[in-house]
Each structure stands twice: as structure tokens, then as C-alpha cells.
């Protein structure tokens, strides 16, 4: 099999500029929102002293989790030596970087004092998993960037496998770290569980693969480059497995919680009585994020159609957002228990379910994370040679890459 050539996209079409403008507008809107929050304080958001982390964190955690999974394709190629994935590895690394940067940007802009970012980068409390995460994230960025460079620079290729392995291990730790942000919150009924770490790893694989599939299909379609079905089908099967694993861990998470009496209240809240949270759990997370994509991916006829595969990817991402919403918001809505078994009330909302009504600025800020991710990916596709010029099925002689390229010139 001849190895496909990687080639930057032309990026002169109206569609390219329209997409870039759209993403740019998202980013600008997010910056505006962040400025508003900085200027007026968090009072203008829906976040309160009860719901401490809101929509920005949903998007940020979603992107960070996805980042780690987006690198999966590269890992499969270089760590597990699947040659078929190799031409896709650079795109996978770029996507991982883009997601992480997008997620971190949202996280930083949501800080109460974003102007003190430098403090966050220079002062560390090494007992804090959060501080470790700062290292994990910046380290991940650095490693993914080096890995990308090694892959793109021909004379460095021979080292890329080592870097790939480091990146692979690093991202396992990273997702564990992200999961542990919640796992370490002993005070909160919804989080205090070791299962958080493996659950987050499974989520990252599912979301990352889904996003990768979407970008892959989109990019090849938009540039008119040929894309064979073979690889696509392998990827979608992989997606199916990951989605199933997420469902499995979700089930285990809730079943073990149900086993422990002290968690009954919060489980009841999320699974039955939580209103929007419950709806998001069952419809968003389980149905859209789990069952629908499984059905699409493994359906004998639909599963072969590119549109259906893309739809499955989209469903996994939407379901993923819902899942993280349930974890973050749902977990906070349920009140802290100061006096087990007692009824409590106070001026500070003790003992009541907290409501969260996100405002526009939060949504804009969160969406701008997606915008940043998209913009970075788009720019990278344009200036770096990371997209295969053609990715036909091995046997079928792919039409010349440049041919289609030139038509577009």
C-alpha cells in the first residue's frame, strides 16, 4: 500500500471563509461575554454561591475530555502500530491540541480573576489535583505539539513512536486527573467515587473518536478529497465499542451508588426527580448519547451510510455534553448534607435543591470554546500538511490527489 500524501487544504473557497468567519464570530462573542463577566462580576451569570460551576465548566470539561480522546487515533497508529491510521495521526494530534486549548480558554476566562492567570501558572499547591492538572494540561499540549512535529518533519519520523507512547500514557493520566477533580470532592454526594476516573477515560475515548469522525468526514467532503469506506467503518466500530463502555460505566456508577444508602437521595434526584437534570440524563445522555449512536453504528444498512455515521458521531457529542451537564450541574443541585437525616433550612439555601438558570454570557463563553477549537483546527488544516490528499480503500486506485485540488484552485 502506498502511503497517502499529506497536504494542506486550499482554503480559498467561500465555504472556508464563511466557516472561519462563523468560528471567529463565536470566539469574539465569547471574548465579549468574558469581558462582561470580568467587568460586572459573576453576578451577571446564572452561577451562584450554590451552583458554583456552570455552563462554562460543562463546555470546558467536555472539550478537555474530548481532547484526550481525540488523540486516540494517533495512539492507535503509533502505539499499537495500526498502519492504516497513520496518515490520520497528525490530524488527531491537532484536534487534541485544539480541543484542549478551547477548553482551557473557557476555563481561564471564567475565573473570577482571569487577570491573575500568571498566578495560576507560577504558584502551585502540589496537594491540589487542580494544580496537577495545570501541569497535565500544559504538558499534554507540549507533548502533543512535539509529537505532531515529529510526525510532520520527515527526518524526525523515527522518534514519533516514542512521543506517541508518551502522549498515550500522558493522556490516560490526564483524563484520570480530570475525572479526579470530581472524584476528590468528598463533600459532594454525587462525585465521591473512584469510578469517576475510568468513567472519564471511557467518555474521552467516545467523545474524541466521535469528534474525529465528524471532522474527518467533514474535511474530506468539503475539500472533495476521496475517502474510502474501509477506515471509516473501522473507526465507527471503535466508536460503538467506546459508547457501549461509557454506558456500562454509567450503569455501574449509579448501581454502586444505589447500593450505598447515603447516596440514595442524590441518585433519586438524578434518576427520577431532578426535572431537567433527569430528562437530560435519560434523553440526552442515555438515549441520544448512547442508544441512538449504538443503533446507528451497528445497524446493518444505516451503519454503512456516511451520513448515519456522522449523525452517530454528532449524537455522541450531544449526549456527551448532556452527560457532563448532569455530572456538573446535577451534582451541585443536590444540596450538601450537613446533618444527615435531618431537615434543614437557612438563608443560604441549605437543604433545598438549587436551581440553575444559565444566562447568555455563560452560553456564549462556553460556545466560544467550541469556536476556538474549530478555528485552530481550521487554521491548522490550512497552514499545515496534516490532511491526507486522498484516503481511498487500499486496493481501489485512488484518483490523483492533486487533480481534485487543482480544480479548486
Amino acid at each position, binding site marked *: 500500500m502506498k502511503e497517502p500524501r499529506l497536504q494542506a487544504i486550499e482554503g480559498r473557497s467561500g465555504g472556508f471563509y464563511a466557516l472561519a468567519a462563523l468560528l471567529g464570530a463565536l470566539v469574539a462573542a465569547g471574548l465579549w461575554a468574558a469581558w462582561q463577566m470580568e467587568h460586572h462580576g459573576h453576578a451577571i451569570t446564572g452561577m451562584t*454561591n450554590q451552583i458554583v460551576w456552570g455552563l462554562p465548566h460543562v463546555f470546558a470539561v467536555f472539550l478537555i475530555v474530548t481532547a484526550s480522546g481525540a488523540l486516540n487515533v494517533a495512539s492507535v497508529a503509533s502505539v499499537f502500530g495500526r498502519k492504516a491510521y497513520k496518515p490520520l495521526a497528525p490530524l488527531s494530534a491537532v484536534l487534541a491540541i485544539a480541543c484542549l486549548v478551547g477548553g482551557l480558554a473557557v476555563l481561564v476566562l471564567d475565573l473570577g480573576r482571569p487577570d491573575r492567570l500568571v498566578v495560576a501558572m507560577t504558584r502551585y499547591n502540589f496537594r*491540589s489535583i487542580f494544580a496537577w492538572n495545570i501541569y497535565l494540561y500544559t504538558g499534554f499540549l507540549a507533548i502533543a505539539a512535539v509529537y505532531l512535529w515529529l510526525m510532520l518533519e520527515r527526518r524526525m519520523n523515527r522518534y514519533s513512536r516514542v512521543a506517541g507512547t508518551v502522549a498515550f500514557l500522558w493522556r490516560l493520566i490526564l483524563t484520570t486527573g480530570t475525572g479526579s477533580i470530581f472524584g476528590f470532592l468528598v463533600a459532594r454526594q454525587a462525585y465521591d467515587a473512584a469510578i469517576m476516573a475510568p468513567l472519564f477515560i471511557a467518555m474521552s475515548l467516545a467523545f474524541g473518536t466521535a469528534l474525529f469522525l465528524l471532522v474527518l468526514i467533514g474535511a474530506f467532503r468539503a475539500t472533495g478529497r476521496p475517502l474510502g469506506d474501509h477506515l471509516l467503518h473501522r473507526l465507527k466500530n471503535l466508536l460503538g465499542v467506546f459508547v457501549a463502555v461509557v454506558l456500562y460505566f454509567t450503569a455501574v456508577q449509579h448501581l454502586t451508588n444505589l447500593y450505598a444508602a447515603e447516596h440514595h437521595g442524590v441518585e433519586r434526584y438524578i434518576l427520577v426527580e431532578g426535572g431537567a437534570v433527569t430528562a437530560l440524563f435519560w434523553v440526552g445522555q442515555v438515549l441520544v448519547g448512547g442508544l441512538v449512536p449504538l443503533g446507528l453504528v451497528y445497524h446493518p444498512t444505516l451503519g454503512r451510510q456516511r451520513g448515519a455515521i456522522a449523525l452517530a458521531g454528532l449524537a455522541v457529542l450531544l449526549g456527551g455534553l448532556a452527560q457532563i451537564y448532569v455530572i456538573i450541574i446535577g451534582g451541585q443541585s443536590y444540596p450538601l448534607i450537613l446533618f444527615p437525616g435531618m431537615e434543614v433550612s437557612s438563608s443560604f439555601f441549605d437543604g433545598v435543591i438549587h436551581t440553575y438558570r444559565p444566562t447568555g454570557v455563560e452560553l456564549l463563553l462556553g460556545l466560544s470554546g467550541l469556536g476556538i477549537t474549530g478555528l485552530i483546527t481550521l487554521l491548522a488544516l490550512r497552514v499545515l500538511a496534516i490532511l491526507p490528499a486522498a484516503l481511498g480503500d487500499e486496493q481501489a486506485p485512488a484518483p490523483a490527489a492533486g487533480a481534485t485540488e487543482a480544480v479548486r484552485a
Partner: protein
Amino acid sequence: MAEQAATRRDFLRAGGALAAGVLLAPGVFLLGPAAARPAGEPASSRQRWGLLVDTRRCADGCDACVSACREENGWGGRGRPETDPQWIRKVRVRDPRSGRSFSLPVMCQHCAHPPCVDVCPTGASMRRADGIVLVDRHRCIGCRYCMMACPYKARSLEHEAVEDPRPWAPRGKGTVESCTLCVHRVDAGREPACVEACRRTGNAALVFGDLADPASEIARSVRELGGEALRADLGLDPGVRYLGLNV
């Protein structure tokens, strides 16, 4: 026992008045539960400051401690309860089985193993040598992870700009804050505002003192009456203890 406490209290009240008087003399900070540290000397682990809340004496309709704290430290009062900070709050507790109910003030518990400090990425949340847990607001980035971690919901984010902060209690938008155990008073050898206010109501449900000093009133009470921790199951060894939670 109760009697004994009362006399002691009277003594303290007198002491407080005296202290207030003395304070008018510039630079001379004297008396109180502990002597003011001399200039240049850091807080020391020989002390462990704490509070004892006697829920049996805490009156149901009273919130003098809360308003005293608000007055002293300048928080709250915008009429937006969801976002306004609350360093201390009155919590009403009712046992659905027995129907018994009581109320008590809850503020930062000044845990000996504070989760807020553990999780804080920048080290802004910190525990002083003498057990007072503070947010170094010069270093706080407003990430709110400590709020997620605190089991007592003791912390608030200042959601808006602060108009006219107290000179002794700086506070500002975008940082997280909580009860400082009135550190500026304690360092000057005085007792916290809430304690003072409670005594003024006559309920005297709050006692401030050095848990590490076996001779102090608070240490003795805890020893003898068994000052309980909220959520003792978490094992955080808070410096704020309660009496009469489970009677």
C-alpha cells in the same frame, strides 16, 4: 457547670469592655482571650484558635452573630441572596423523627484538614499556623474549586464589585471569601465580632479561645462537654465545635 460558665462570661464581658477602652490608647492592644502578638512575630502553632457553639443556648429567632459579622466585615446586603456572600448563616435543623428542632450558626469550621486548602491550585486557600483557615485573596484566582470542596458550604464568591470595604477587612470582586475568624481582631488580641455580639444578646452561645491551651475555657468545655464536629464522619477536625447537636 452552666453557672460557672456564666460567671466566666461576665468576666469576659467586662474584659471586652476593658479591651475596647484600652484600644483607644494608640498601639496598645491588650487583653482578651489571648494577648496580641508583638509586632513582627508570626502566628504560631502553639495556638489553635477555635469556636464553641452551644446550640442549646442559641436562640431560635436570633441572628445577632450574623449581623455582627456582616457589620464587622462588610459583606452582604445587596438583597441578592443567591449571589451575595454569607460568611455566617443561621441554620434551622429539625429531626423529622422526633420533631425536635434547634438552630445554630454555621461559618467556616477552620478545619484542621481542610479540603478547601487541599484542592486550591494556587495555594490561596491556606491554613495559618494557629489554625485559622484563610483565603489569601492576593493569590486567589476565583476558580471556586474550594467552594466545590468545602462540605460546609462555608465559602462564597464575591460576585460583584465591593463598594466601600472595611479598612481592616479588604474584600473584592472575583475572589472567594469566608469567615476569617476575625483574624484582624484575633491578631490584635480581641475576640471575633460574632462572639462579642452573641454575648451582648445575653445568650452567650459562642465561646472563642485557644483549643491548644488545656486551661482555656473552650478547651475545657470541649473536653468536658464533648464539643462535636459537624459531619464528624469526614474527619476534618474542625476548629468550630458544637454542643447539643444530638440530644
